[in-house]
């Protein structure tokens, strides 16, 4: 059952990522990117990371993708050039990409990964939150600072007169 869910979701994820790569219309690309992000959220559930799955849907599929779609529609971008490359470049690009994946697969498959047994509350909000607010408290606060700076930067950059 778990393997079946993984195979289906992984196929959908790769196909939707390919649509992002190949489709000329950025709105369609953004919608398929949402599909890809939701697929990864399902994979997080299979990996016992419930909190990450919720965060993935709320922050990525919700906030970031709405921001991207909002900008696409604000600028009313219709169609753009698709893949802009000669046939030789396209061939060698695909060859290099396939080779890179083959290299990684070659490195991963011979290793027998021993999967640890985990507590029943692994990946819940409480489990993550306890670590986040004790051991990783300072990095967590730094992230809020980064978000504040990014917000100020975005406001200044998008202003009419720089």
């Amino acid at each position, binding site marked *: 059952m778990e393997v079946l869910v993984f195979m289906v979701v992984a196929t959908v994820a790769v196909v939707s990522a390919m649509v992002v790569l190949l489709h000329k219309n950025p709105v369609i690309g953004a919608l398929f990117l949402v599909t890809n992000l939701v697929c990864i959220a399902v994979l997080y559930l299979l990996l016992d*990371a419930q909190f*990450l799955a919720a965060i993935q849907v709320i922050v990525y599929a919700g906030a970031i993708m709405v921001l*991207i779609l909002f900008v696409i529609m604000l600028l009313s*971008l219709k169609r753009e050039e698709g893949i802009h490359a000669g046939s030789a470049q396209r061939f060698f*690009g695909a060859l290099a990409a396939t080779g890179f994946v083959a290299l990684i697969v070659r490195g*991963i498959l011979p290793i027998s990964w021993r999967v640890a047994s985990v507590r029943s509350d692994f990946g819940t909000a409480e489990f993550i939150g306890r670590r986040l607010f004790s051991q990783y408290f300072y990095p967590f606060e730094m992230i809020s600072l980064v*978000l504040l700076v990014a917000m100020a930067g975005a406001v200044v950059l998008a202003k009419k007169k720089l």
Partner: protein
Amino acid sequence: MLNVQGYLVLSAAIFVIGVMTVLLRRGAITILMGIELMLNATNLAFAAFSRQRGSAEGQIFVLFVVAIAAAEAAVGLAIVIALFRLRETTDVDDVNLMKW
């Protein structure tokens, strides 16, 4: 049973598709979407290794990556808007002021 290899191979595949989106497409927003694909692929690898080792560190790192991705998307899209105001285009080939 849980199989970590599958997740890692899928992560590599999505990462390569993201790299190709950044390298081969010319629209600035599509390039940003390629970056999101790459960040998601690394997040998936982090979550897989977190489950394999049974430690929380990988998942906490994913949280930080998501926060950085949100900041990156906000600033990147603001740059795209400023670019569009200036040049009436989001094609990165038309933005070559600093290219010699």
